[in-house]
């Protein structure tokens, strides 16, 4: 697996985590960090320090944190609502709904799928969504 150099990783962290307030394991407040391990180096998780598409709508509403996963398992990517509270503003609140944790976990999982496989896996559409063509 390609690994990111220490200097490059430090630069990436500086670039993408300006809103970081504390490490996930030191957070005493509500609004728990949601974490996913992506089996790729940090530079592939947030290429160029940019937020990947599934996270972009939440820019300004959540904070991110990332670090190398132990044992060569890639990168741990964490997110939580800014300020550590469940209430989010505007469009972010609409997207997140009643369970920000669930929504964030799902978003992180989509980021992981995109990075690891190149696409987000879609379920089959149910028969009710599409009429059958008699054959």
């Amino acid at each position, binding site marked *: 697996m390609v690994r990111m150099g220490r200097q490059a990783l430090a630069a990436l962290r500086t670039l993408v985590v300006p809103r970081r307030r504390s490490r996930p394991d030191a957070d005493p407040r509500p609004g728990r960090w949601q974490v996913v*391990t992506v*089996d790729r180096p940090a530079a592939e998780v947030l290429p160029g320090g940019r937020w990947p598409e599934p996270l972009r709508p939440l820019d300004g509403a959540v904070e991110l944190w990332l670090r190398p996963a132990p044992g060569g*398992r*890639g990168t741990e990517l964490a997110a939580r609502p800014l300020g550590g509270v469940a209430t989010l503003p505007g469009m972010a609140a609409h997207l997140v709904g009643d369970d920000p944790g*669930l929504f964030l976990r799902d978003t992180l*999982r989509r980021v*992981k*799928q995109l990075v*690891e*496989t*190149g*696409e987000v*896996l*879609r*379920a*089959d*559409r*149910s*028969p*009710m969504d*599409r*009429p*059958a*063509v*008699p*054959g």
Partner: protein
Amino acid sequence: MRALCWEGANSLAVRQVPDPELRNAHDMIVRVRRSATCGADLPLLAGRSPFLAAGDVLGHEFLGEVTEVGPQVRRHRVGDRVVVCAAVACGSCWYCRQGLYSCCDNGGASTAAAEAAWGQPTGGCYGHPRATGGFAGSHAEYVRVPYADVGAFTVPETVSDDRAVFASDAAPAGWMGAELGEVGPGDVVAVWGAGAVGQLTAQAATLLGADRVIVIDRHPDRLRMAEAHTGAETLNFELTDVPAELRERSGGRGPDVCVEAVGAADGGGRPASLAERFTGRRDGPVEDPLAVREAVHACRKGGTVFVSGTFTGFVDTFPLGAVMNKGLTLRSARQHGQRWIPMLLDRMARDELRTEHLATHRLPLDQGPAGYALFRDRADGCVRAVFTPEG
């Protein structure tokens, strides 16, 4: 297209449903030539899954011909004859890299139910509820295959459809029980269940060098089949004291490796429990640890118990004390087929692994409901009903 749809508890019907469509770049569409029943379908058929919806298509063990490929598919072309692993896995995540394909992080499009039930989402499976995967089943004329380069395997010309279809699920499940149970030369191996997975576990144990393989069941026709096709010894648990027989046949030590391959148990001959009588839940397959319990007690000290059966929830009266005090290794998994299917197809091509006898009933798809009734009730000597949608 026509497909075998679940309509409600113990109710199936062949209906017209929309053709599958490419939903991702790594998808392909397969025209189904063979699709087998499996014990894992029985809890679904009985309506034990709260997430199954009327109209869902069952089936996950299949073989067919590629009719359409997505732009990112590299290993397959239209016209290829392929067997498709029942487990849907991406091939790219950490779990897939470890060979734990059924634990794939990216194999399910819908993961909330699995996460709630088991703590983490697992890989997907065809023909299971949308909430635990999201992929229609293979008892249909066509099926969508996600991650096609990872989950589909070209079948060697010399291997028939009737043999190769079992490389999709039963054969890798059987091989897994023997390999992850660490069967080696000189071992005594006991296998609970003489269905397809049990028989293929017995074959795998023999191929891995076991000295003695003993298959346990209560259906005489299945036991006869196991003797004839796997070379294993057999025990009918309704007619003999299984733990005593196993002690006697293993020098008093107990089997080195015990594999539970009962699938969705039919309850055996035991009386219904008070709870079952009260809830009326004795009319179908049960999650009964009877065979696991017996395996744990029979296994030699320091041996391995592998659980292949279809468990989805909780079981009671599990002998954890015996596991600890005898120093047992307890392992289990849904099959990681992508890890073994190429090897199994090679063995099938060399005639080392024979499976076609397991298809005791070959039926057109239109007879799907009758096929499942035979399979569920173990009637007419049914081990597996295999459907031919084109037939």
